[in-house]
Protein backbone atom coordinates (compact mmCIF):
# COMPACT_ATOMS: atom_id res chain seq x y z
CA UNK A 1 0.00 0.00 0.00
CA UNK A 2 1.32 3.45 -0.90
CA UNK A 3 2.62 5.37 2.08
CA UNK A 4 1.89 8.86 3.26
CA UNK A 5 3.16 11.74 1.19
CA UNK A 6 4.53 14.95 2.65
CA UNK A 7 2.85 17.94 0.99
CA UNK A 8 4.00 21.54 1.43
CA UNK A 9 1.46 24.24 0.59
CA UNK A 10 0.61 27.79 1.50
CA UNK A 11 -2.90 27.94 2.93
CA UNK A 12 -4.36 31.42 3.44
CA UNK A 13 -0.85 32.85 3.41
CA UNK A 14 0.63 30.42 5.95
CA UNK A 15 3.04 27.69 4.97
CA UNK A 16 1.23 24.48 5.84
CA UNK A 17 2.68 20.99 5.64
CA UNK A 18 0.56 17.89 5.84
CA UNK A 19 0.83 14.15 5.35
CA UNK A 20 -1.74 12.41 3.22
CA UNK A 21 -2.44 9.33 1.17
CA UNK A 22 -2.38 9.92 -2.60
CA UNK A 23 -6.05 8.91 -2.83
CA UNK A 24 -7.18 11.68 -0.45
CA UNK A 25 -8.77 14.75 -1.97
CA UNK A 26 -7.60 18.24 -1.15
CA UNK A 27 -10.99 18.66 0.56
CA UNK A 28 -10.34 15.66 2.82
CA UNK A 29 -6.85 16.95 3.56
CA UNK A 30 -8.17 20.39 4.49
CA UNK A 31 -10.97 19.06 6.67
CA UNK A 32 -9.63 15.85 8.19
CA UNK A 33 -5.85 16.35 8.17
CA UNK A 34 -5.30 20.08 8.54
CA UNK A 35 -8.49 20.55 10.55
CA UNK A 36 -9.94 23.39 8.50
CA UNK A 37 -13.60 22.45 8.19
CA UNK A 38 -14.89 25.64 6.56
CA UNK A 39 -14.88 24.06 3.10
CA UNK A 40 -17.87 21.72 2.94
CA UNK A 41 -18.44 18.34 1.36
CA UNK A 42 -21.69 18.29 -0.57
CA UNK A 43 -21.78 15.93 -3.53
CA UNK A 44 -18.10 14.92 -3.55
CA UNK A 45 -18.16 14.69 -7.35
CA UNK A 46 -17.70 18.23 -8.60
CA UNK A 47 -21.31 19.21 -9.14
CA UNK A 48 -22.29 21.29 -6.10
CA UNK A 49 -19.38 23.64 -5.46
CA UNK A 50 -19.67 23.52 -1.65
CA UNK A 51 -15.97 22.57 -1.47
CA UNK A 52 -14.82 25.46 -3.68
CA UNK A 53 -11.38 26.80 -2.80
CA UNK A 54 -8.98 29.04 -4.66
CA UNK A 55 -5.96 27.09 -5.94
CA UNK A 56 -3.16 29.20 -7.42
CA UNK A 57 -5.59 31.94 -8.38
CA UNK A 58 -8.35 29.75 -9.86
CA UNK A 59 -11.43 28.47 -8.14
CA UNK A 60 -11.66 24.68 -8.12
CA UNK A 61 -13.81 22.04 -6.50
CA UNK A 62 -11.38 20.70 -3.88
CA UNK A 63 -13.12 17.31 -3.94
CA UNK A 64 -11.72 16.84 -7.47
CA UNK A 65 -8.16 17.79 -6.59
CA UNK A 66 -5.89 15.31 -4.84
CA UNK A 67 -4.08 16.58 -1.78
CA UNK A 68 -0.80 15.53 -3.38
CA UNK A 69 -1.56 17.73 -6.39
CA UNK A 70 -1.47 20.76 -4.10
CA UNK A 71 2.29 20.35 -3.52
CA UNK A 72 3.86 23.81 -3.89
CA UNK A 73 0.50 25.49 -4.41
CA UNK A 74 -1.23 28.44 -2.84
CA UNK A 75 -4.60 27.47 -1.44
CA UNK A 76 -7.08 30.06 -0.25
CA UNK A 77 -10.15 28.89 1.66
CA UNK A 78 -13.15 30.43 3.37
CA UNK A 79 -11.11 30.63 6.57
CA UNK A 80 -8.90 33.25 4.92
CA UNK A 81 -11.69 35.53 3.68
CA UNK A 82 -12.33 37.57 6.82
CA UNK A 83 -9.48 39.68 8.18
CA UNK A 84 -8.52 40.70 11.71
CA UNK A 85 -10.50 43.89 11.12
CA UNK A 86 -13.70 42.02 10.43
CA UNK A 87 -15.81 40.37 7.78
CA UNK A 88 -15.08 40.70 4.09
CA UNK A 89 -17.65 42.87 2.23
CA UNK A 90 -19.01 39.73 0.57
CA UNK A 91 -19.58 38.08 3.96
CA UNK A 92 -21.22 41.26 5.27
CA UNK A 93 -23.47 41.40 2.21
CA UNK A 94 -24.48 37.76 2.63
CA UNK A 95 -25.52 38.48 6.21
CA UNK A 96 -27.38 41.69 5.46
CA UNK A 97 -29.14 40.24 2.40
CA UNK A 98 -30.11 37.03 4.20
CA UNK A 99 -28.30 35.10 1.46
CA UNK A 100 -28.00 31.89 3.45
CA UNK A 101 -30.27 29.52 5.28
CA UNK A 102 -28.68 26.21 6.19
CA UNK A 103 -25.24 27.56 5.30
CA UNK A 104 -23.62 24.49 3.81
CA UNK A 105 -23.22 26.05 0.37
CA UNK A 106 -22.18 29.46 1.71
CA UNK A 107 -18.38 28.99 1.98
CA UNK A 108 -18.25 27.82 -1.63
CA UNK A 109 -20.40 30.70 -2.85
CA UNK A 110 -18.29 33.25 -1.00
CA UNK A 111 -14.95 31.87 -2.23
CA UNK A 112 -16.32 31.72 -5.79
CA UNK A 113 -17.87 35.20 -5.65
CA UNK A 114 -14.67 36.69 -4.20
CA UNK A 115 -12.63 35.36 -7.14
CA UNK A 116 -15.11 36.90 -9.57
CA UNK A 117 -15.37 40.32 -7.94
CA UNK A 118 -11.60 40.61 -7.50
CA UNK A 119 -11.09 39.91 -11.21
CA UNK A 120 -14.20 41.68 -12.50
CA UNK A 121 -15.47 44.23 -9.98
CA UNK A 122 -18.10 45.39 -12.48
CA UNK A 123 -19.58 41.92 -13.08
CA UNK A 124 -23.29 42.30 -13.82
CA UNK A 125 -26.11 40.00 -12.76
CA UNK A 126 -25.85 37.78 -15.85
CA UNK A 127 -22.11 37.35 -15.34
CA UNK A 128 -22.58 36.64 -11.63
CA UNK A 129 -25.25 34.01 -12.32
CA UNK A 130 -23.07 32.39 -14.98
CA UNK A 131 -20.00 32.39 -12.74
CA UNK A 132 -21.92 30.86 -9.85
CA UNK A 133 -23.61 28.15 -11.94
CA UNK A 134 -21.22 25.63 -10.39
CA UNK A 135 -22.47 26.37 -6.87
CA UNK A 136 -25.74 24.78 -5.84
CA UNK A 137 -28.05 26.01 -3.08
CA UNK A 138 -31.16 24.08 -2.13
CA UNK A 139 -32.51 26.68 0.34
CA UNK A 140 -32.51 30.19 -1.01
CA UNK A 141 -33.62 29.87 -4.62
CA UNK A 142 -30.42 31.83 -5.49
CA UNK A 143 -32.01 35.25 -5.77
CA UNK A 144 -30.80 36.51 -2.40
CA UNK A 145 -27.33 35.14 -3.09
CA UNK A 146 -27.16 36.96 -6.40
CA UNK A 147 -28.46 40.18 -4.75
CA UNK A 148 -25.78 39.82 -2.07
CA UNK A 149 -23.01 39.45 -4.64
CA UNK A 150 -24.28 42.47 -6.61
CA UNK A 151 -24.38 44.42 -3.34
CA UNK A 152 -20.88 43.24 -2.42
CA UNK A 153 -19.59 44.38 -5.80
CA UNK A 154 -20.97 47.85 -5.12
CA UNK A 155 -19.32 47.91 -1.69
CA UNK A 156 -16.00 46.73 -3.10
CA UNK A 157 -16.08 49.38 -5.82
CA UNK A 158 -16.90 52.17 -3.35
Amino acid sequence: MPGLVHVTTTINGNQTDFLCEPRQSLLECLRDVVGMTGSKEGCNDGNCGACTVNLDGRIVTSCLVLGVEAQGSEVNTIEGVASAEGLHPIQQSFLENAALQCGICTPGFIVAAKALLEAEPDADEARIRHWLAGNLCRCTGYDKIVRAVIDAGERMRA
Partner: protein
Amino acid sequence: MRAIDYVAPTSLSEAVSVLSANGDRARPLAGGTDIIVQLRGGRRELDVLVDAKSIPELNQIELTDSGLRLGAAVPCYEIYQNQAVAAAYPGLIDAAGLIGSIQIQGRASIGGNLCNAAPSGDSIPPIITLSGEAHINGPNGWRAVAAEDFCTGPGRSVLEPGEILVGIQIPAPAANSGTAYLRFIPRNEMDIAVAGVSSSVVLDASGQTVQSARIALASVGPTPILATAAGDSLAGKGVSDDAIAEAGRLASEAATPITDMRGTIRQRHHLVDVLTRRTLNIAIRRARGEE
Protein backbone atom coordinates in the same frame (compact mmCIF):
# COMPACT_ATOMS: atom_id res chain seq x y z
CA MET B 1 -11.40 5.49 -3.17
CA ARG B 2 -9.06 2.51 -2.74
CA ALA B 3 -5.36 3.16 -2.17
CA ILE B 4 -3.48 4.35 -5.18
CA ASP B 5 0.03 5.55 -6.00
CA TYR B 6 0.76 8.97 -7.42
CA VAL B 7 3.76 10.07 -9.42
CA ALA B 8 4.44 13.47 -10.96
CA PRO B 9 7.10 12.94 -13.64
CA THR B 10 8.82 16.01 -15.06
CA SER B 11 9.61 14.51 -18.45
CA LEU B 12 7.64 12.71 -21.12
CA SER B 13 10.06 9.77 -21.20
CA GLU B 14 9.72 9.28 -17.46
CA ALA B 15 5.91 9.34 -17.76
CA VAL B 16 5.94 6.79 -20.58
CA SER B 17 8.22 4.47 -18.63
CA VAL B 18 5.92 4.53 -15.57
CA LEU B 19 2.86 4.04 -17.79
CA SER B 20 4.56 1.18 -19.68
CA ALA B 21 5.65 -0.54 -16.48
CA ASN B 22 2.09 -0.52 -15.12
CA GLY B 23 0.09 -1.27 -18.29
CA ASP B 24 -3.63 -0.80 -17.87
CA ARG B 25 -3.17 -0.29 -14.11
CA ALA B 26 -1.84 3.24 -14.72
CA ARG B 27 -3.38 6.26 -16.34
CA PRO B 28 -2.39 9.88 -16.83
CA LEU B 29 -4.02 12.51 -14.63
CA ALA B 30 -4.63 15.97 -16.08
CA GLY B 31 -7.45 18.02 -14.51
CA GLY B 32 -8.83 14.95 -12.75
CA THR B 33 -12.43 16.07 -13.11
CA ASP B 34 -13.44 12.77 -14.72
CA ILE B 35 -10.88 10.27 -13.49
CA ILE B 36 -11.13 11.14 -9.79
CA VAL B 37 -14.91 10.76 -9.95
CA GLN B 38 -14.52 7.42 -11.76
CA LEU B 39 -11.99 6.10 -9.24
CA ARG B 40 -14.05 7.22 -6.27
CA GLY B 41 -17.19 5.69 -7.72
CA GLY B 42 -15.46 2.37 -8.45
CA ARG B 43 -16.04 2.72 -12.17
CA ARG B 44 -12.31 2.53 -12.80
CA GLU B 45 -9.57 0.72 -10.87
CA LEU B 46 -5.95 1.79 -11.08
CA ASP B 47 -2.73 1.32 -9.15
CA VAL B 48 -0.99 4.48 -10.31
CA LEU B 49 -2.00 7.97 -11.40
CA VAL B 50 0.65 9.69 -13.49
CA ASP B 51 0.22 13.45 -13.08
CA ALA B 52 0.68 15.11 -16.47
CA LYS B 53 0.85 18.64 -15.14
CA SER B 54 4.62 18.71 -14.59
CA ILE B 55 5.49 17.45 -18.09
CA PRO B 56 6.40 20.50 -20.21
CA GLU B 57 5.09 19.21 -23.57
CA LEU B 58 1.64 18.54 -22.12
CA ASN B 59 1.25 22.03 -20.70
CA GLN B 60 2.19 24.21 -23.65
CA ILE B 61 -0.21 26.18 -25.76
CA GLU B 62 1.51 27.34 -28.88
CA LEU B 63 -0.03 29.28 -31.75
CA THR B 64 2.12 29.61 -34.88
CA ASP B 65 1.63 30.04 -38.63
CA SER B 66 1.17 26.30 -38.90
CA GLY B 67 -1.64 26.22 -36.35
CA LEU B 68 -2.29 25.45 -32.72
CA ARG B 69 -0.38 22.94 -30.64
CA LEU B 70 -2.47 22.38 -27.57
CA GLY B 71 -0.80 20.43 -24.77
CA ALA B 72 -3.07 17.67 -23.54
CA ALA B 73 -3.15 18.92 -19.93
CA VAL B 74 -3.81 22.62 -20.63
CA PRO B 75 -6.95 23.56 -18.70
CA CYS B 76 -9.96 25.07 -20.46
CA TYR B 77 -9.62 28.51 -18.90
CA GLU B 78 -6.09 28.93 -20.28
CA ILE B 79 -7.48 28.27 -23.73
CA TYR B 80 -10.35 30.73 -23.64
CA GLN B 81 -8.32 33.38 -21.81
CA ASN B 82 -5.71 33.27 -24.58
CA GLN B 83 -7.01 36.03 -26.85
CA ALA B 84 -5.04 34.98 -29.91
CA VAL B 85 -6.31 31.40 -29.65
CA ALA B 86 -9.85 32.59 -28.94
CA ALA B 87 -9.77 34.80 -32.05
CA ALA B 88 -8.38 32.04 -34.28
CA TYR B 89 -10.58 29.17 -33.05
CA PRO B 90 -13.94 30.48 -31.76
CA GLY B 91 -15.48 27.05 -32.32
CA LEU B 92 -13.05 25.53 -29.82
CA ILE B 93 -13.84 28.32 -27.36
CA ASP B 94 -17.59 27.60 -27.71
CA ALA B 95 -16.85 24.20 -26.14
CA ALA B 96 -14.05 25.12 -23.69
CA GLY B 97 -16.33 27.74 -22.16
CA LEU B 98 -19.26 25.43 -21.48
CA ILE B 99 -17.65 22.28 -20.10
CA GLY B 100 -18.82 21.98 -16.48
CA SER B 101 -18.59 25.00 -14.20
CA ILE B 102 -15.98 27.76 -13.82
CA GLN B 103 -14.46 25.51 -11.14
CA ILE B 104 -14.26 22.57 -13.56
CA GLN B 105 -12.84 24.77 -16.33
CA GLY B 106 -10.05 25.74 -13.93
CA ARG B 107 -8.82 22.14 -13.99
CA ALA B 108 -10.31 20.17 -16.88
CA SER B 109 -8.35 19.92 -20.14
CA ILE B 110 -9.39 19.41 -23.74
CA GLY B 111 -6.90 16.53 -23.96
CA GLY B 112 -8.58 14.91 -20.97
CA ASN B 113 -11.99 15.41 -22.54
CA LEU B 114 -10.73 13.53 -25.60
CA CYS B 115 -9.08 10.72 -23.58
CA ASN B 116 -12.18 10.29 -21.42
CA ALA B 117 -13.87 9.46 -24.73
CA ALA B 118 -17.39 10.18 -23.57
CA PRO B 119 -19.82 10.33 -26.51
CA SER B 120 -20.97 13.64 -24.98
CA GLY B 121 -17.50 15.23 -24.72
CA ASP B 122 -18.25 18.81 -25.74
CA SER B 123 -14.80 19.66 -27.08
CA ILE B 124 -14.49 16.61 -29.32
CA PRO B 125 -16.82 17.70 -32.19
CA PRO B 126 -15.02 21.05 -32.71
CA ILE B 127 -11.62 19.32 -32.57
CA ILE B 128 -12.91 16.98 -35.28
CA THR B 129 -14.35 19.73 -37.49
CA LEU B 130 -11.14 21.75 -37.06
CA SER B 131 -9.25 18.69 -38.43
CA GLY B 132 -7.40 18.17 -35.15
CA GLU B 133 -4.84 15.43 -34.80
CA ALA B 134 -3.95 13.62 -31.58
CA HIS B 135 -0.20 13.35 -31.01
CA ILE B 136 0.54 10.27 -28.95
CA ASN B 137 3.79 9.11 -27.39
CA GLY B 138 4.46 5.65 -26.04
CA PRO B 139 6.97 2.84 -25.70
CA ASN B 140 7.12 2.57 -29.50
CA GLY B 141 7.62 6.29 -30.10
CA TRP B 142 5.29 8.80 -31.70
CA ARG B 143 2.12 8.37 -33.69
CA ALA B 144 -0.65 10.70 -34.83
CA VAL B 145 -4.34 9.86 -35.02
CA ALA B 146 -7.07 12.00 -36.60
CA ALA B 147 -9.45 13.28 -33.91
CA GLU B 148 -12.42 11.53 -35.53
CA ASP B 149 -10.62 8.17 -35.19
CA PHE B 150 -9.48 8.67 -31.58
CA CYS B 151 -12.56 7.45 -29.70
CA THR B 152 -13.48 3.81 -30.24
CA GLY B 153 -16.43 3.41 -27.86
CA PRO B 154 -17.90 4.95 -24.72
CA GLY B 155 -14.87 5.62 -22.48
CA ARG B 156 -12.54 3.84 -24.92
CA SER B 157 -9.90 5.25 -27.22
CA VAL B 158 -7.04 4.16 -29.47
CA LEU B 159 -4.57 4.73 -26.62
CA GLU B 160 -2.70 1.51 -25.84
CA PRO B 161 -1.33 0.74 -22.37
CA GLY B 162 1.84 2.77 -21.92
CA GLU B 163 0.75 5.50 -24.32
CA ILE B 164 -0.05 9.09 -23.44
CA LEU B 165 -1.80 11.84 -25.38
CA VAL B 166 0.79 14.61 -25.55
CA GLY B 167 -1.09 17.22 -27.50
CA ILE B 168 -3.62 18.09 -30.12
CA GLN B 169 -2.43 19.73 -33.33
CA ILE B 170 -4.99 21.90 -35.10
CA PRO B 171 -4.13 23.37 -38.52
CA ALA B 172 -4.12 27.14 -39.00
CA PRO B 173 -7.60 28.34 -39.93
CA ALA B 174 -8.06 28.65 -43.71
CA ALA B 175 -8.99 32.03 -45.18
CA ASN B 176 -12.76 32.66 -45.04
CA SER B 177 -13.36 29.81 -42.62
CA GLY B 178 -15.49 29.57 -39.51
CA THR B 179 -16.38 26.97 -36.89
CA ALA B 180 -19.05 26.75 -34.19
CA TYR B 181 -20.29 24.33 -31.53
CA LEU B 182 -23.70 24.21 -29.88
CA ARG B 183 -25.25 21.65 -27.57
CA PHE B 184 -28.79 21.18 -26.34
CA ILE B 185 -29.29 20.85 -22.58
CA PRO B 186 -32.51 21.39 -20.62
CA ARG B 187 -30.72 23.73 -18.20
CA ASN B 188 -28.68 26.87 -18.90
CA GLU B 189 -25.35 25.57 -17.54
CA MET B 190 -23.72 22.58 -15.91
CA ASP B 191 -25.25 19.72 -17.86
CA ILE B 192 -24.34 16.94 -20.26
CA ALA B 193 -25.36 17.37 -23.88
CA VAL B 194 -28.55 15.67 -25.05
CA ALA B 195 -27.03 16.32 -28.45
CA GLY B 196 -24.17 18.53 -29.66
CA VAL B 197 -23.04 19.61 -33.12
CA SER B 198 -19.98 21.38 -34.45
CA SER B 199 -19.87 22.76 -37.98
CA SER B 200 -16.89 24.16 -39.81
CA VAL B 201 -17.00 25.82 -43.22
CA VAL B 202 -14.52 27.24 -45.70
CA LEU B 203 -16.11 29.77 -48.04
CA ASP B 204 -14.77 31.27 -51.27
CA ALA B 205 -13.44 34.83 -51.24
CA SER B 206 -16.90 36.24 -51.99
CA GLY B 207 -18.34 34.50 -48.95
CA GLN B 208 -21.21 33.17 -51.08
CA THR B 209 -20.05 29.64 -51.95
CA VAL B 210 -19.00 26.81 -49.65
CA GLN B 211 -15.69 25.27 -50.66
CA SER B 212 -15.71 22.61 -47.96
CA ALA B 213 -17.47 21.81 -44.71
CA ARG B 214 -17.11 19.41 -41.80
CA ILE B 215 -19.87 18.50 -39.35
CA ALA B 216 -19.37 16.45 -36.18
CA LEU B 217 -21.89 15.23 -33.61
CA ALA B 218 -21.84 14.52 -29.87
CA SER B 219 -24.12 12.41 -27.66
CA VAL B 220 -25.86 10.70 -30.57
CA GLY B 221 -23.77 7.54 -30.90
CA PRO B 222 -21.23 5.40 -29.02
CA THR B 223 -18.49 7.85 -30.06
CA PRO B 224 -18.44 11.40 -31.42
CA ILE B 225 -19.35 11.12 -35.10
CA LEU B 226 -17.90 12.86 -38.16
CA ALA B 227 -20.94 13.27 -40.43
CA THR B 228 -18.96 13.10 -43.67
CA ALA B 229 -21.86 13.04 -46.12
CA ALA B 230 -23.49 16.03 -44.43
CA GLY B 231 -20.32 18.13 -44.68
CA ASP B 232 -19.54 17.01 -48.23
CA SER B 233 -23.08 17.85 -49.38
CA LEU B 234 -22.24 21.54 -49.00
CA ALA B 235 -19.01 21.51 -51.04
CA GLY B 236 -19.30 23.70 -54.13
CA LYS B 237 -22.80 24.87 -53.26
CA GLY B 238 -23.92 28.45 -52.81
CA VAL B 239 -24.85 29.40 -49.26
CA SER B 240 -28.62 28.91 -49.10
CA ASP B 241 -31.29 27.77 -46.68
CA ASP B 242 -31.93 24.74 -48.90
CA ALA B 243 -28.30 23.63 -48.84
CA ILE B 244 -28.13 24.10 -45.08
CA ALA B 245 -31.40 22.19 -44.60
CA GLU B 246 -30.05 19.31 -46.69
CA ALA B 247 -26.88 19.19 -44.56
CA GLY B 248 -29.05 19.15 -41.43
CA ARG B 249 -31.06 16.25 -42.81
CA LEU B 250 -27.91 14.27 -43.69
CA ALA B 251 -26.32 14.98 -40.29
CA SER B 252 -29.46 13.70 -38.60
CA GLU B 253 -29.20 10.54 -40.73
CA ALA B 254 -25.60 10.04 -39.59
CA ALA B 255 -26.66 10.03 -35.92
CA THR B 256 -27.17 6.66 -34.20
CA PRO B 257 -28.63 7.76 -30.87
CA ILE B 258 -30.16 5.75 -28.07
CA THR B 259 -33.04 6.60 -25.77
CA ASP B 260 -31.84 7.22 -22.22
CA MET B 261 -32.51 9.44 -19.22
CA ARG B 262 -31.42 12.54 -21.17
CA GLY B 263 -33.45 12.15 -24.34
CA THR B 264 -35.08 9.92 -26.89
CA ILE B 265 -33.90 8.66 -30.26
CA ARG B 266 -36.46 10.79 -32.09
CA GLN B 267 -35.67 13.92 -30.10
CA ARG B 268 -31.94 13.49 -30.71
CA HIS B 269 -32.34 13.05 -34.48
CA HIS B 270 -34.40 16.24 -34.49
CA LEU B 271 -31.85 18.08 -32.34
CA VAL B 272 -29.00 17.14 -34.68
CA ASP B 273 -30.93 18.59 -37.61
CA VAL B 274 -31.65 21.86 -35.76
CA LEU B 275 -28.18 22.22 -34.23
CA THR B 276 -26.51 21.49 -37.57
CA ARG B 277 -28.45 24.29 -39.25
CA ARG B 278 -27.75 26.68 -36.38
CA THR B 279 -24.02 25.92 -36.18
CA LEU B 280 -23.67 26.16 -39.96
CA ASN B 281 -25.23 29.61 -39.87
CA ILE B 282 -22.90 30.73 -37.07
CA ALA B 283 -19.87 29.21 -38.84
CA ILE B 284 -20.82 31.00 -42.07
CA ARG B 285 -21.19 34.33 -40.27
CA ARG B 286 -17.82 33.81 -38.63
CA ALA B 287 -16.24 32.89 -41.97
CA ARG B 288 -17.57 36.17 -43.37
CA GLY B 289 -16.21 38.09 -40.41
CA GLU B 290 -19.72 39.09 -39.37
CA GLU B 291 -19.29 37.87 -35.77
